[in-house]
C-alpha cells in the first residue's frame, strides 16, 4: 500500500509538471510554432487571461465561465493586435520580436496603471484527495485532463478541418495557398487570435494557482518557449506533447528526491541536451521515423 501511494504520487507529480508545461505552451504552439513569430507578449496575454478571469469571478460568474470569457476576450485582443501591428512584420522575425516585446511592456505597465499592483486571487476550486500519506489536488487533476483535451482538440482542428488545412498550407507557403483560393490574410488573423485566446485560456486556468499581478506573465514565458522549441516545428502539436512529457520525465524524479529547485535545474539541463542532440526538436525526430514508415509501404 505504501508503494502504491508512492507510485500514484509520482505519477501525479509527473502529470502536473507536464500539464503546467503544456498549458504555458498552448498559445505559443500556435503563434511561435506555426506562424514563426517570437511572441514576447505571450506571458502578458496569459496575464490578461488571469485578470479577465479574476474580474469576472468577482462579478459573480462561475469559474468555468470565467475561463471561457478569458479565451474570448484575449482572443479578441489578439485579433486587434494582429490587424493593427503584427501583420506588418510577417517574415521579419527580429522586428516581430521587438514589436511583441513592446506590446508586452504596454500590456503589463498599462495593467499596473489601471488595476494597481494586485487583484484579488481566485480560490482553488475543488478540494483534495488523500492517497496514503500523500494529498492530491483535485483542481490539478482537472488541469491535467483539460490540457490533454485541448491538445486533442487542437490536433483535430489542424488535421481534420478545412480551417486547419488552410492554416497549415498558409504557414508553409502563403503565396501558393493564396493562388489555390485561400484568403491568407483571414487565416493569419484567425491563427494569431486563436493563439492569443489559448494564452488567455491558460492564464485563466493557472490564475487560481498564482498571485494575480501585472508581471505574473513572466513566470510562464520560459517554460512556454522551452516546451515549444524543444518540441520543434516539424509537427508543433506532437512536438509540444513529446517535449512536455520528456522534460517532465526528467524533472519529476529529480524534484521528488532532491527538491523542486533541483528539479527545475534538471529540466533546464535536459532542454539544453535535447536541443544539442536534436536541433530541430523532438518532432523532427518523430517525422524522420514516420517518413521512413510511409515510404516503405
Amino acid at each position, binding site marked *: 500500500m505504501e508503494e502504491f501511494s508512492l507510485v500514484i504520487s509520482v505519477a501525479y507529480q509527473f502529470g502536473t509538471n507536464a500539464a503546467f508545461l503544456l498549458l504555458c505552451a498552448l498559445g505559443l504552439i500556435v503563434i511561435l510554432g506555426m506562424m514563426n513569430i517570437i511572441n514576447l507578449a505571450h506571458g502578458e496575454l496569459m496575464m490578461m487571461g488571469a485578470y479577465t478571469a479574476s474580474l469576472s469571478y468577482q462579478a459573480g460568474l462561475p469559474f468555468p465561465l470565467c475561463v471561457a470569457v478569458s479565451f474570448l476576450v484575449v482572443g479578441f485582443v489578439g485579433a486587434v493586435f494582429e490587424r493593427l501591428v503584427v501583420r506588418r512584420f510577417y517574415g521579419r522575425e527580429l522586428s516581430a520580436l521587438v514589436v511583441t516585446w513592446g506590446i508586452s511592456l504596454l500590456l503589463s505597465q498599462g495593467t499596473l496603471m489601471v488595476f494597481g499592483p494586485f487583484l484579488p486571487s481566485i480560490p482553488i476550486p475543488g478540494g483534495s484527495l488523500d492517497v496514503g500519506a500523500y494529498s492530491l489536488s483535485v483542481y490539478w487533476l482537472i488541469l491535467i485532463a483539460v490540457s490533454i483535451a485541448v491538445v486533442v482538440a487542437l490536433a483535430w482542428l489542424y488535421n481534420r478541418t478545412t480551417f486547419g*488545412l488552410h492554416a*497549415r*498550407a498558409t504557414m*508553409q*507557403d502563403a*503565396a*501558393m*495557398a*493564396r*493562388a*489555390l*483560393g*485561400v*484568403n*491568407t490574410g483571414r487565416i493569419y488573423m484567425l491563427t494569431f487570435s486563436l493563439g492569443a485566446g489559448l494564452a488567455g485560456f491558460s492564464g485563466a486556468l493557472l490564475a487560481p494557482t498564482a498571485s494575480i499581478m501585472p508581471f505574473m506573465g513572466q513566470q510562464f514565458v520560459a517554460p512556454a518557449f522551452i516546451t515549444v522549441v524543444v518540441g520543434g516545428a*516539424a*509537427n508543433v502539436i506532437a512536438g509540444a506533447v513529446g517535449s512536455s512529457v520528456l522534460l517532465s520525465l526528467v524533472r519529476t524524479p529529480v524534484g521528488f528526491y532532491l527538491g523542486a529547485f533541483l528539479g527545475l535545474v534538471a529540466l533546464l539541463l535536459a532542454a539544453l541536451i535535447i536541443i544539442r542532440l536534436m536541433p530541430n526538436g523532438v518532432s523532427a525526430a518523430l*517525422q524522420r521515423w514516420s*517518413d521512413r514508415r*510511409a*515510404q516503405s*509501404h
Partner: protein
Amino acid sequence: MMGTELLTATGLRSGYSIGDVLQGFDLSIDRGEVVSVLGRNGVGKTTLMKTLIGLLPTRAGNIRYQGEDISALPADRRARRGIGYVPQGRGIFPQMTVRDNLRMGGFINRDQQTPDPEVAFSFFPFLRDRQRQRGGTLSGGQQAMLAIARALINAPDLLLLDEPSDGVQPSIVQDIGAFVRELNQSRQLTVLIVEQNIDLIQTVAQRAYVLDKGRVVADLDRERLMDTEHVATYLAV
C-alpha cells in the same frame, strides 16, 4: 458580352521593385485552346504567370476573365473563379501529405464542389498509393505531377502551367503532356503553358506567343510551331 474568349490581357505592365518586367503585354485565349508562351530565360514568362493569377499586382493594362475585369482581384478570388495555377518549382506544401496537397486543389473552382482525384490517379497512379506520404519527400518529377493533379482536381476552366518540364525526366514530361491533352479534349480545359521544352510544346499547344523584353514579338500558328528548327531560334540563348 461573353464571346468565346476566356482570357484576355491588354497592355499588361507588371514587375518588381526594380522596375516593370512586362511592358505592355497582350494576349487572348479562347475557350478550349492550349496556348504556349515561348521565350528565353528572363524575358518575363514567370512574371506573366504570377500577374495573371494575381500574385503580382497589375500596374497598368487589364486582365479579363470570363468577360469580367479581374485585374484588381486578389489571387484567392481569381482561383475561386476557376483558374488553376502550377508555379515554377511546383509549390508543393512539403510538410503536408499527398492527400492534403490534393485537397488544397479543391477550393480552386467555387462553382464546382466535387473534387475528383480519380482522373488524376488514372494518369499518375503513384499518387493513389502515396497519399499518406509527405509532399516534401517526393522526387521532383513526382512533385510536378502532384502539382498538376492538384490544380486540376476540381475541374477549373483555365490552367496556368509555368514550366512543368523543369527538372523532370523525359518519360514524366510525356505523361504530363498526355494528361493535359486528354483533359483539353475530354473537358475543353483551356491551358496557358510557359515552356522551353519543344517536345512538350509540340505535344500540347495549338499556337504560341513569343515573348521578348516583356512584349509579344511573334505569333506562331500550329504549322510554324511544328517546325522544330524555327521554334528553337526563339529559345536559343
